């Protein structure tokens, strides 16, 4: 309800930064942060793009965002457990070094 354009542009910039970091970062932890940050940006677009209903912002997308936040943390939590195990087993924290896979 307040200056939707400001939020949308900020969300777009955050999404761009997230995608840039996802491609450039070689440390998986940084890539997971990038995905969480991009998710927050998309939630912002979801709420703002839905538009106000008689003044207040529409309640339904807010419930969707709440569901989205919990799903985001479930995915990130599992990804972190996977990352720690990957680092423990192969000693690498990046998807790049394929050296030690048993081909």
């Amino acid at each position: 309800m307040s200056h939707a354009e400001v939020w949308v542009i900020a969300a777009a910039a955050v999404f761009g930064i997230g995608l840039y970091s996802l491609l450039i970062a070689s440390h998986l932890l940084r890539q997971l942060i990038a995905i969480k940050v991009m998710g927050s940006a998309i939630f912002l677009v979801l709420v703002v793009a839905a538009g106000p209903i008689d003044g207040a912002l529409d309640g339904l997308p807010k419930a969707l965002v709440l569901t989205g936040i919990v799903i985001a943390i479930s995915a990130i939590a599992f990804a972190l457990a996977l990352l720690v195990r990957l680092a423990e087993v192969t000693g690498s924290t990046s998807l790049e070094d394929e050296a030690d896979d048993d081909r």
Partner: protein
Amino acid sequence: MNALEGLAALLLVAGSSFFLAGTVGLLRFPDALSRLHALTKADNVGLLLICSGLGVLAGSLQTAGMLLLVWLLAMLAATVSAHLIAGRALADDTPELPGEQDDTP
């Protein structure tokens, strides 16, 4: 602008000035410990003043109670955090944070 709103405005402005003092201290002081001192002391008094200003504005006792709880908890948290961080800053032989030097991309 009756008397109450005047008082509230005064408290809010005073609170803001304490926050300003805290931030100036944070930026200008030479080392971590003195910055810690600035931040915890000034900001907490600032928060107290702002909370009391808002309490006066809100006018309901229940809101004032909530504000008081928030402030008390903020003070407790600030003291313990400052104690721990100061302990860490003193004991820590390496001024850098782990991972500082490796600048992982």
